[in-house]
């Protein structure tokens, strides 16, 4: 194995990691901290540009064999369109998070260097999760993603709520990674190998009731670790507290970035390593999906705090996304995974937008994220209200928004896998969600502003980043909502190679 080739495989991740170190280094020696956001964003954009370049060269068969993924480090990592698609998505989420957090952090006089550095390290871990084709590399990336996130959740630790969010997230997160590690150890025990393809081959040779039982235990443990990270019911208890207590830009990032990486990474693990063993984990996954959709949506109904409401809604969306895995596992067709990638993209746009509007309001006036406080927003901040309405409509899944197409493709994949009842449950649950999403719109347009919701004088720090990020997200929601084809084609192209090894 040529070491240079191996580095090419992980180049986007390397670029982002180098970006993180440059941010830390510049933070040590430069007094003007405003430059840090630009460096961090530049690192992410460079990483995404490298990924796009590799995508083009993979598509055209330049340098790479288009039929066979380029692997490196003894098969531990693989360069393919699936990973590249996710890299671009993660980098986009990262840039949006930077835009949302700069004014927020400046307003709280929080150090920005460590925030951006840690953010880039999380994204490095996220990229690692989708590039990995070996459970060792996968677990290390998983931890690289998780550990800085615990710190970010408690970044404003002098605020007791942020500190509490951090400690709760750490305990549940570390607990779930230990469970995942044990599950992966047992998978290794069952198959004798650690690469995904090796595991698939090893498991195919298994026979006998003992081995089958062993495998079920292993999968239940892995699915539990996965369930904690994506906040699936019954492993969801931490999510509302952590989402409420964490700094809002971090919440936005956890709900979109970390969740997207968990889905994309685990989807790859499940499909490439355990796709043939689908029947051993089908039931676990189906129960998980139904519970998550129902409990997430129902518990979101009574929430008066918008961050908590979005937390429960994010649980519900994790349920929809799990349907994609079930569809792919049952039918053996790649549409389910492609729908997951599409939905992750859609979900990132609308959720970053929704949290972005909350940050926007928070930067302009006193705001405790309650529903009553956004009454009359249509008059005080008309542009923010319109954008928020777009995101809420899209989260509900009403055309012509990206949210509609996301759900459409997911549910189509489920129906094609002959699981119509599951699709019906999902549709019913998304109509339940209309109540709490559209209630936000109702409050903004038809309720009076509460007492004391006056704008502060224009704040010192610029709101430009937030405004641009939220507007771009809304534009994305609408444009892809009108023309979903190219994104779906890209997602389908991304999954074609990994599906079925």
């Amino acid at each position, binding site marked *: 194995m040529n070491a240079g080739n191996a580095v090419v495989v992980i180049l986007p991740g390397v670029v982002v990691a180098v970006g993180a170190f440059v941010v830390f280094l510049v933070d040590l020696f430069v007094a003007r901290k405003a430059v840090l956001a630009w460096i961090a964003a530049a690192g992410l954009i460079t990483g995404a540009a490298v990924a796009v370049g590799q995508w083009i060269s993979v598509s055209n068969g330049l340098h790479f064999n288009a039929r066979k993924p380029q692997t490196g480090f003894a098969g531990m990592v693989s360069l393919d369109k699936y990973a590249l698609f996710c890299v671009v998505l993660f980098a986009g989420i990262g840039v949006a998070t930077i835009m949302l957090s700069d004014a927020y952090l400046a307003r709280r006089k929080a150090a920005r260097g460590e925030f951006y550095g840690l953010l880039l390290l999380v994204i490095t871990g996220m990229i690692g999760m989708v590039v990995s084709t*070996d*459970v*060792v590399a996968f*677990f*290390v990336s998983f*931890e690289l993603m998780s*550990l800085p996130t*615990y*710190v970010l959740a*408690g970044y404003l*630790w*002098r605020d*007791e*709520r942020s*500190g*509490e*969010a*951090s*400690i*709760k997230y*750490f*305990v549940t997160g*570390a*607990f779930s*990674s*230990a*469970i995942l*590690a*044990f599950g*992966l*150890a*047992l998978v*290794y*025990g069952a198959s*004798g*190998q*650690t690469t995904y393809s*090796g595991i698939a081959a090893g498991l195919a040779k298994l026979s006998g009731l003992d081995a089958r039982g062993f495998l079920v235990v292993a999968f239940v443990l892995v699915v539990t670790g996965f369930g904690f990270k994506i906040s699936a019911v019954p492993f969801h208890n931490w999510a*509302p*507290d*952590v989402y*409420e*207590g964490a700094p809002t830009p971090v919440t936005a990032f956890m709900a979109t970035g970390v969740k997207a990486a968990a889905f994309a990474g685990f989807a790859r693990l499940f499909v490439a390593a355990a796709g043939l063993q689908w029947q051993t984990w089908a039931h676990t996954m189906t129960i998980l999906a139904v519970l998550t959709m129902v409990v997430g949506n129902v518990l979101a109904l009574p*929430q008066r*705090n918008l961050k*908590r409401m979005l937390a429960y809604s994010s649980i519900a969306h994790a349920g929809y996304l799990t349907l994609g895995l079930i569809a792919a596992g049952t039918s053996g067709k790649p549409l389910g995974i492609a729908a997951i990638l599409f939905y992750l993209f859609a979900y990132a746009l609308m959720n970053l937008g929704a949290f972005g509007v909350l940050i926007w309001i928070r930067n302009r006036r006193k705001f405790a994220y309650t529903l009553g406080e956004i009454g009359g927003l249509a008059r005080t901040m008309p542009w923010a209200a319109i954008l928020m309405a777009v995101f809420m409509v899209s989260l509900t899944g009403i055309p012509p928004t990206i949210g509609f197409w996301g759900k459409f493709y997911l549910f189509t994949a489920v129906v094609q896998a002959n699981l119509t009842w599951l699709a019906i449950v999902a549709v019913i649950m998304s109509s339940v969600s209309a109540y709490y999403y559209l209630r936000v719109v109702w409050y903004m347009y038809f309720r009076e502003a509460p007492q004391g919701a006056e704008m502060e004088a224009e704040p010192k720090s610029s709101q430009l980043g937030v405004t641009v990020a939220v507007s771009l997200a809304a534009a994305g929601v609408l444009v892809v909502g009108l023309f979903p084809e190219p994104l779906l084609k890209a997602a389908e192209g991304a999954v074609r190679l990994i599906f079925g090894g």
Partner: protein
Amino acid sequence: MNALYWWLTLAVLLFCIGAFGVLVRRNVIVVVMCLELMLNAVNIALVAISNFRAGALGAGTLFSLFIITLAAAEVTVGLAIVIANYRNRRTVQTDQYDELKG
């Protein structure tokens, strides 16, 4: 029955003791210790598998090295978070972290 099963039984027992501790204990420091116990159970399982399972590649030992370092990093981050919280509230009892609920 062979030696591997005994080692795996040990690993499962340790893992369950750790998991029980995480779920039951209220002192964060003890919870962190229990998390370490769980990860060490994983290490025992990995090393046992890579040693005793016929046809297993040596990757298990490698994995356990990574888990040792990850556990150290995890404990460092966790204790740092605990210290930050302790400065705020003067307690390490999890049931007194009740600001967020609903």
